[in-house]
């Protein structure tokens, strides 16, 4: 049985805060839930499925379901980092198809900015029972330097340049200037990016995403319910998920799990990369975008640098408008997890509700993709393809 068309995204909400010193993480989750249900035209009592990941405080869904006092018959707390929420949409569609729930609520929230978290530059030991920790923590892996090794190898293999990577930030900044909630609204140039200080070579400060508080929520429903609601219909037609790691020591940094999750999603959706009108691509760093664009098939492996250059990702200018909210690079990376905002902006585009300056004309087919965890050691990939009906 194909899951193409098994469920629709009926509600999407991005919390407007970027710094939440006055609210708890649990309350931010609740405010996102309220926003997404209101957007869908549904209420608390309609929810019978709940999904969350590692950002949710407490024990998986148990704590948040209790906090919100939901009555659910299906719950899932699969955590694949920032890409969890794309996977949750897919798993909600599976659960709906299997008759396990009708209305699935997915929430994300966090406040790393208020908590002063040095997200990308601090090595964290974690639990020594995690089997890689003792063999890696002494070497100082941080978020940035592990992604940076992917960039370094890409440059070595394919001749990719810092200037080409910079174009990804430039495109995001062109979009963010129109988003009143974006953390970074100034348009930047390639020169601005490559002249910003190196954090971990070859990545500069402006190759990195923002650290922001906030959150988001999604409501996924069965087709009959979507048909009864007043919102434009966003049908889920393709989905894929894949882990990628060090392959037992046969490390290959030239590709990501998107190679597999993307292929699965395109196969289910029966569309090709060239058909996609808008793409939300996970942008923890500029290199993340470049590798995923290649692996999703928008261009040949190794040609990503040339593909993203000269404004090709800018809405109204290039061939592949991406992250028209400003993405994680300029707008928002709530809880250090950008997966949910990727789906939210894709939903806005398909509904025709993106900012008029960045709205893609006749946007009837969109892709959202996430990479969670660390691109250069081990990560999860999740891809969704959605259609406006």
């Amino acid at each position, binding site marked *: 049985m194909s899951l193409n068309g098994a469920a629709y995204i009926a509600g999407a909400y991005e919390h407007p805060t970027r710094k939440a010193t006055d609210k708890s993480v649990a309350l931010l989750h609740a405010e996102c839930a309220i926003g997404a249900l209101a957007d869908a035209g549904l209420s608390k009592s309609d929810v019978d499925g709940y999904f969350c990941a590692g950002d949710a405080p407490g024990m998986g869904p148990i704590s948040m379901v209790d906090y919100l006092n939901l009555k659910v018959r299906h719950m899932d707390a699969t955590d694949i980092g920032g890409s969890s929420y794309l996977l949750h949409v897919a798993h909600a569609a599976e659960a709906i198809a299997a008759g396990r729930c009708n209305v699935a609520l997915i929430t994300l929230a966090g406040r790393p900015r208020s908590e002063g978290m040095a997200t990308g*530059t601090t*090595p964290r*030991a974690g639990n*020594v*029972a995690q*089997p*890689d*920790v*003792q*063999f*890696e*923590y*002494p*070497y*100082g*892996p*941080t978020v*940035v*330097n*592990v992604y*940076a*090794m*992917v*960039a*370094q*190898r890409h440059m*070595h293999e394919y001749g990719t340049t810092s200037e080409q990577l910079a174009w990804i930030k430039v495109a995001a900044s062109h979009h963010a200037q129109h988003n009143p909630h974006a953390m970074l609204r100034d348009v930047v140039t390639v020169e601005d990016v490559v002249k910003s*200080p*190196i*954090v*971990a*070579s*070859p*990545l500069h400060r402006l190759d990195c995403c923002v650290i922001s508080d906030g959150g988001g929520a999604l409501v996924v429903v069965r087709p009959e319910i979507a048909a009864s609601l007043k919102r434009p219909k966003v049908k889920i037609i393709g989905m894929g998920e894949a882990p990628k790691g*060090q*392959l*037992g*020591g*046969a*490390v290959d*940094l030239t590709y990501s799990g998107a190679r597999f999750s993307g292929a699965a999603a395109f196969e289910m959706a029966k569309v090709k990369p060239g058909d996609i009108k808008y793409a939300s691509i996970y942008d923890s760093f500029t290199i993340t975008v470049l590798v995923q664009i290649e692996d999703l098939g928008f261009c040949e492996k190794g040609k990503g640098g040339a593909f993203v250059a000269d404004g090709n990702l800018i809405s109204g200018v290039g061939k592949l408008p991406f992250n028209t909210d400003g993405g994680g690079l300029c707008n928002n990376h709530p809880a250090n997890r950008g997966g949910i905002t990727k789906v939210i902006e894709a939903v806005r585009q398909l509904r025709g509700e993106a900012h008029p300056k960045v709205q893609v004309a006749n946007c009837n087919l969109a892709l959202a993709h996430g990479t969670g965890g660390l691109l*250069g*050691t081990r990560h999860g990939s999740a891809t969704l393809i959605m259609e406006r009906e």
Partner: protein
Amino acid sequence: MAYQQRKIPFAGAIDSNPETKPFFEGCAAGVLKIPHCNKCGKTHWYPRGVCPHCMSQDLAWKDASGKGTIYSFSVMKRAEVPYCIAYVTLAEGTTMLTNIVDCDLDTVRIGQSVALRFVPTEGGPPMPMFTPA
């Protein structure tokens, strides 16, 4: 730029995961022991109690030559003491996460030949790192 060695932390104890204790005992003795599968004949990294290639538990520790090549690297500039994280592909074929030490970090390049160097840690045995050969 003159090289400065940052303090190297160690996570847990050498027997936190009992089956990999021999690796850390090797480090204490100045030997890089790498896991080798007697069933499929392959080495792997990081060390573990089961072969990630064939799932056999018939494993043996072999002494590595200490020679390798830099597969990728990044110099962490935004740190109290800058350091170079790297993937080094060992002559034995497997690729490990490590640090490049004792050199001008601005001269580190992919493809460079490197040699093993044990660097003391805080709270654990010295850990295997590499310096340009």
